[in-house]
């Protein structure tokens, strides 16, 4: 088959020609895959062919090896591995040959394809000669081939994981790459390719970074490359430094002074892409030190993994002035541009991270800058001063900030109304929000907001909500944190007198024609939510009045017919906000009997609206509507059963939504809500629900975070339906048993330990639900066979000593449930179990009240079981 013409046709502007070409490519592929891939690689390698067809041939090859979607990717990998070896060798030979093509596009395409093949074959111990083939004569190669070889090594390091390549091969790769980067390399393209390759190869260099001499050499070459005359090389070299800062933080001490000098020069003098990377180096160091300090507090012991070197603290006197300078380099209109990222933004962000890293020490270094610039006629100076102020509010102690903030508050309130510059107002509103977020609330001893200034604050913020969308959005944000600070204020809130006005203003904002800009509408609804959440009984009647208002808004979104996909997306987003708002209101009103009673008059209508929201979509369910329904089920109780016939299909749809696993997780939670609400009336739907939940558990497509809640949900259902659960008992128990075996040990990182504990908790909640559900039923005996396994599970997780408090509380409860439900049958087993007694005693003396409470109950149940 003549692929050249077909490949040309596949890029034709004539749709019909293109379609025919794509069809015949597809046919060729289906009829003879090895032949197809081989002819593509021949095309790519053939110097006589046009560059477009060579590139396309390479691209199709690449897509035949890799896909974004995991299952598809796996299929492609298997397909390649099972391909005829002879064809594969010929393809690989063509690819390697192309690396020395004079045509740069062909070379670069071949690099990427080789990396994909390597990504498949190297982990299988196939193509072992690749790396030596690439490196064998790298020194004698003409520049263009050398560049392609280095690029290939870079892509390859991106594709494969470090454990796949032997250390001596890693050494060879690094040697070639670092030599290619060094100043002695005359060719710019080669040096750039080498620098970019190093970025990907850094993860392979663990051993080399532990060797002083090798590390020194690598660091020297990287630092030299930051001074290259070529801007792209400088940028790539700084990217390497950023990566090194997080991968090899503990090795940086000898170089940090030099790096500071290099970065300071780049921040002040270099082109923006380079200076942004230079700032990022310090932000990344902050990230590292914040993590270390959060984990270990201030005292380090011998067994701390990585000590804090306090690079930021040491660099502070020079670092802060450098960052403050960047703040004055704002772009006009950066606040209206969502994609904006410039040196002022990067510097400001870094300043905030520095404040979090060093705390109080930053304050005296920044205050003079604020004082000097805050009243200057140039808006850039006022804005920079305001930003500097806002960025140091998180980190330093409230005591350190209090006097500064008290002065600043009055000034900011006035600036928000009077400053002529929108940029300044935007940052001022943001800084006010930061004050309320970090220095207002029950946790702060001396209140910033008093009866005297509360009125003024509210008035100014509501006024600002009429400003340009970006300023209004920040004002909403400030109000959000103002409300949040009063969350635990007690029966009477200082915001009560303004409640109605606040709600009215927020609703007005949502109706602004420009509310779609700067995510203003979203901010307004989120603020409304927080205002409702933090409201007190004094304003309950006003919250009730809000119900029909939001319902009407939701109803209005359902009117549109024949929407374009763009309009559909907007409709869905708005429905999300309104369902979210209703969810908050339902939860608020449902939490006290009198308001719940009045609210219930709307329940039918609200449920009707939610069902219509679901009906707007064909294949997926609306997450926010699902969350709201959970809240509604809780408020409605047994009456919710009447909605089930209509609602069930959406519930099922939600449980089947593997792609948006959040939706699936939320739906699983709602099944729990409904089980508790309608109890045995859920029985008619249990076959479908249990089937789907068991399917979900056995799927490897579903995000693992959904699995623990599924187990908890078994418990919810079992508790709700009691002995009717019998019919699922064996399946549920066998799923629980295999999960229990998997979750006994937590070997792995913190994240895995956390996950394992959440899995344990889910499993144990399921056991609790099942045992309590069967209590006092004639079928209790069905549970006896499972008791010893559960006790073994409890024993083994007790012995592991890595339970978190939540698991401990649930686990001791399960021990009680066993005794409570099985009585004497469990009593002897518990007495025989090696660690039940120790576990119980440990829980009884726990300082955690919930653990203690569960343990007291378990003790009672066990003593009754044993005494029988």
């Amino acid at each position: 088959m003549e692929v050249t013409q077909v490949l040309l046709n596949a890029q034709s502007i004539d749709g019909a020609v293109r379609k025919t070409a794509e069809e015949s490519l597809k046919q060729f592929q289906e009829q003879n895959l090895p032949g197809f891939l081989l002819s593509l690689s021949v095309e790519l390698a053939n110097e006589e062919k046009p560059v477009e067809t060579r590139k396309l041939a390479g691209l199709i090859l690449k897509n035949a090896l890799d896909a974004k979607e995991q299952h598809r990717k796996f299929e492609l990998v298997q397909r390649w591995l099972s391909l005829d070896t002879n064809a594969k060798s010929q393809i690989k030979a063509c690819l390697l040959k192309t690396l020395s093509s004079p045509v740069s596009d062909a070379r670069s395409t071949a690099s990427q394809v080789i990396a994909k093949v390597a990504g498949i074959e190297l982990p299988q111990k196939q193509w072992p000669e690749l790396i030596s083939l690439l490196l064998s004569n790298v020194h004698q190669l003409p520049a263009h081939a050398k560049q392609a070889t280095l690029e290939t090594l870079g892509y390859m390091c991106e594709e494969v994981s470090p454990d796949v390549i032997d250390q001596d091969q890693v050494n060879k790769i690094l040697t070639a790459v670092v030599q290619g980067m060094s100043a002695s390399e005359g060719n710019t393209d080669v040096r750039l390719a080498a620098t970019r390759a190093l970025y990907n190869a850094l993860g392979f260099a663990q051993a080399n970074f532990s060797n002083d001499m090798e590390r020194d050499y690598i660091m020297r070459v990287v630092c030299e490359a930051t001074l290259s005359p070529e801007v792209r090389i400088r940028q790539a070299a700084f990217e390497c430094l950023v990566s090194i800062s997080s991968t090899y933080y503990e090795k940086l001490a000898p170089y940090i002074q030099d790096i500071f000098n290099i970065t300071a020069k780049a921040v002040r003098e270099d082109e923006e892409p380079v200076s942004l990377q230079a700032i990022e180096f310090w932000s990344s160091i902050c990230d590292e030190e914040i993590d270390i300090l959060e984990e270990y507090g201030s005292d380090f012991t011998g067994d701390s993994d990585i000590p804090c070197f306090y690079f930021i603290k040491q660099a502070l006197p020079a670092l802060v002035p450098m960052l403050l300078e960047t703040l004055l380099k704002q772009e006009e209109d950066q606040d209206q541009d969502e994609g904006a990222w410039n040196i002022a933004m990067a510097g400001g962000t870094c300043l905030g991270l520095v404040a979090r890293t060093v705390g109080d020490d930053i304050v005296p270094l920044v205050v003079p800058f604020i004082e000097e610039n805050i009243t200057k006629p140039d808006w850039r100076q006022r804005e920079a001063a305001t930003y500097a102020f806002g960025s140091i509010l998180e980190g330093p102690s409230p005591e350190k900030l209090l006097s500064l903030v008290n002065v600043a508050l009055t000034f900011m309130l006035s600036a928000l109304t009077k400053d002529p510059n929108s940029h300044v107002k935007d940052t001022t509103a943001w800084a006010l929000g930061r004050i309320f977020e970090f220095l207002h609330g029950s946790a702060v001893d001396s209140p910033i907001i008093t009866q005297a200034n509360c009125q003024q604050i509210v008035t100014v913020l509501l006024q600002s909500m009429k400003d340009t969308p970006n300023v209004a959005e920040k004002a909403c944000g400030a109000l959000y944190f103002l409300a949040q600070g009063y969350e635990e204020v007690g029966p009477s809130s200082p915001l009560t007198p303004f409640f109605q006005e606040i709600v009215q203003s927020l609703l007005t904002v949502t109706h602004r024609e420009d509310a779609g800009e700067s995510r203003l509408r979203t901010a307004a609804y989120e603020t409304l939510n927080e205002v409702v959440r933090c409201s007190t009984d004094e304003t309950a009647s006003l919250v009730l009045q809000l119900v029909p208002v939001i319902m009407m808004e939701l109803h209005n979104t359902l009117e549109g017919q024949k929407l374009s996909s763009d309009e559909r997306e907007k409709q869905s987003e708005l429905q999300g906000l309104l369902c979210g708002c209703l969810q908050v209101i339902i939860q608020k009103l449902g939490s006290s009997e009198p308001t719940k009673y009045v609210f219930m008059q709307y329940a039918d209508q609200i449920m009707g609206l939610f069902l219509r929201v679901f009906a707007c979509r064909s294949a997926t369910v609306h997450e926010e509507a699902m969350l709201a329904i959970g809240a509604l089920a809780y408020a409605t109780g047994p009456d919710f059963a009447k909605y089930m016939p209509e609602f069930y299909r959406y519930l099922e749809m939600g449980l089947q939504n593997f792609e948006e696993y959040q939706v699936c997780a939320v739906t699983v939670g709602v099944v729990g809500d409904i089980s508790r609400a309608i109890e045995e009336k859920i029985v008619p739907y249990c076959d479908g629900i249990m089937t789907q939940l068991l399917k979900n558990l056995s799927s490897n497509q579903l995000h693992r975070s959904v699995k623990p809640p599924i187990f908890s949900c078994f418990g919810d259902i079992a508790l709700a339906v009691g002995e009717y659960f019998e019919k699922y008992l064996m399946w549920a128990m066998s799923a629980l048993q295999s999960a229990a075996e998997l979750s006994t040990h937590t070997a792995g990182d913190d994240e895995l330990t956390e996950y394992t504990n959440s899995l344990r908790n889910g499993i144990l909640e399921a056991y609790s639900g099942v045992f309590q559900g069967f209590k006092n039923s004639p079928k209790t005996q069905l549970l006896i066979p499972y008791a010893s396994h559960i006790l073994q599970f409890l024993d083994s997780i007790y012995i592991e000593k890595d339970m978190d408090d939540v698991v401990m509380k649930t686990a001791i409860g399960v021990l009680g449930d066993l005794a409570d439900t099985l009585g004497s049958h469990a009593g002897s087993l518990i007495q025989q179990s090696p660690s039940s007694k120790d576990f119980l005693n440990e829980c009884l003396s726990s300082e955690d009240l919930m653990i203690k409470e569960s343990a007291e109950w378990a003790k009672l149940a066990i003593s009754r079981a044993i005494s029988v």
Partner: protein
Amino acid sequence: MAPHDLRRPFKRAAISDQQKRRELSLLRQEQNRRDAQQQARCLASSILSLQSPVPESEPEQSDIELETAPEIEKESGTLSKDLDVPRASKLRGPEVRKWFARQLMLPEWMIDVPDRLSQDWYVYARPAGKRCFVVSSNGTTVSRQRNGSILHHFPSALPAGAKTRDSSGSGQSYCILDCIFHELDQTYYVIDMVCWNGYSLYDCTSEFRFFWLNSKIEESAYTGVVPYVKDGLLFYNKHAHYQTGNTPLVLVWKDENCSQYVIDTDSKGEIPSQQQVVLELQDNGKLVTSDDPPVLFGYLDGDIIQKSGLHSGNLLRFAVSDGGLSFVDGKLDKADLNYLGKANRGRAFADSYSKVVFQFTVRHSPLKIDDLLASINSPDDQEKKPCDVEMVG
């Protein structure tokens, strides 16, 4: 290798309100779960002292039950819904055959295409062979044919299917699988599951039962290659429970492409020139099918009854004569039958109505695979699904 994006959130709160709503929901759910659990724990618990399991090995006691149990069933004429295998396994002789014969779910024959075939029904190719129950209990496994007679006796890996030293296979444990025994490779193909390890799946929908049998039902049952000889297609309604006797929620359909046995053969394996049916003789000479309620096909002349010494309950064989079967409004109106004699002794039941009609239509105007496919693709089915239509005019 393009430069890496290093933008960080700017002037943004670290957590979104949506995330907060999710988390608050989770908190509320945790709280509610705790409350529900707490409430359950505080319910007075009557610490149960379960009696030790009834000794299984007291022959006298079980022998008594053995005699009476099937009698009761026979008299009342109803099928026991809950199947008591430990008890049934002690039945002997004809009683046990009768008992098991009543436990199978028997498919009706597909004489017209059900609605929503593509949505509500599972389909798979039925293996050619003997329909049987495979029952494991008390350390042995027995397969029983449709008429209740034993096909094989063997140890198996099923729970309680073999004698092991493992004490877990208690007398409580047993399995019943609905199978077809495929002679060619001496394999039992499981087509449905009734009980597993002592748990009854009777009340579960087939959607639930099949999840455990096989997670994915063969979609191209008709054309697809299967490792056994096909004998027609079985259609299972997703929502159907396992039910003993004839059920319209499981349907069998066949044509020459997917079965060697489309038209019934006689005892010599030859297709008789006229269709033959087996009907049950009832009082007053009524001839009925095995359906519940039975369908009346006609009356047998009193002379013949007397001459041949027939009595109520006999299964009789008839040929369908040239008058054939005639239908009015989809119901049987007249059947032109010719008495041939008593049915084979191995028969446990008369033919079902759907079988007779299917065999009749196969000989005259069969339901074709194209009719089934047409139903799946019919506009009636599609209308119920939302679909995007690209406008061209």
